[in-house]
C-alpha cells in the first residue's frame, strides 16, 4: 500500500503569526541594509578613483542629496539593530570556558559592547582628525 507523505503547509507569511518570529524576520532583513551599504561604499571608492573634480560632483549631487540622507538614516537604524542582535547573540554562538566553567554570558556581551564603543570612537577620531 502506498503512503502519502505529510507535508505541513507553510505559508510565505509565517513570520507574521507571532511577535518573536516577526522580530526574527526584522533581524534577517537588516542584511539588505548591510548589503546596500557595502555596495554604497564600493561606489564611493569608485568615485574617489575618478579624480577630485568627479568626486566633488558626485559628493554634491548624490552624497548630499535628500534620498541618500534618508537611505543613510534608515541604514543606520537597521545596521545598529543588526549590531545589537549580533552582540547579544555572541554568548550563544561562542560559549568559551574558563577552566571547567562557562564564562558568564553577561561578560561576553559587555566585552562586545565595550569593543564596539572603543572601535567606533577610534574610527571617529581618525576620520575627524585626518
Amino acid at each position, binding site marked *: 500500500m502506498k503512503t502519502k507523505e505529510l507535508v505541513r503547509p*507553510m*505559508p*510565505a507569511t*509565517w*513570520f507574521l503569526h507571532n511577535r518573536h518570529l516577526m522580530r526574527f*524576520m526584522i533581524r*534577517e*532583513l537588516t*542584511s*539588505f541594509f*548591510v*548589503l546596500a*551599504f*557595502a*555596495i*554604497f*561604499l*564600493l561606489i*564611493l*571608492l*569608485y*568615485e*574617489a*578613483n*575618478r579624480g*577630485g573634480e568627479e*568626486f566633488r560632483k558626485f*559628493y554634491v549631487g548624490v*552624497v*548630499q542629496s535628500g534620498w*541618500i*540622507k534618508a537611505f*543613510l*538614516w534608515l*541604514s*543606520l537604524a537597521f*545596521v*545598529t539593530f*543588526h*549590531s545589537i542582535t*549580533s*552582540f547579544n547573540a555572541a554568548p550563544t*554562538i561562542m560559549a568559551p570556558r574558563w577552566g571547567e566553567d562557562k564564562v558568564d554570558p553577561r561578560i561576553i556581551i559587555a566585552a562586545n559592547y565595550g*569593543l*564596539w564603543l572603543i*572601535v*567606533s570612537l577610534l*574610527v*571617529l577620531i581618525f*576620520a*575627524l582628525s*585626518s
Partner: protein
Amino acid sequence: MAKSNEPLVWAPFFAGAGLSALLMPVLIIITLLGSYGVPPSLDLRGLINHWFVRIVLLVLISLSLFHALHRIRFILVDLGLKAAHGLIAALCYGLAIMGTLVALLVVTGVWG
C-alpha cells in the same frame, strides 16, 4: 561522517557578521556627517584614499557581501522558494565572489 561545505560559507558569514556589526554603524555616521557637510573640514575623499582605510574597506565589503547574501539566501528559501534553493545559493555566493573581485579592482585603483 558525511563531508559538508557548510564551514566554507559559514566562516565568511560569521566573520562578516562581526566586522559589519563593529564597523558599519560608525562608517554610516561618518558618511552622514559628510552628507550634511559637518564639520566642513571632513575630507571624505582623502579618507577613502588612505591606504589603511582602503584595506579595511576591502575586507569589510567582501565579508559583508558574504554575510548579507548568506542570510538573504535563507530568507528567500524561508519565504517559500525552497524548490530553487540550489539556484539561490549559487546566485548568492556567485554575487558575493563577484562583488569581492570588483572591490579588489576598485580598492587597488585598477577600476575607476
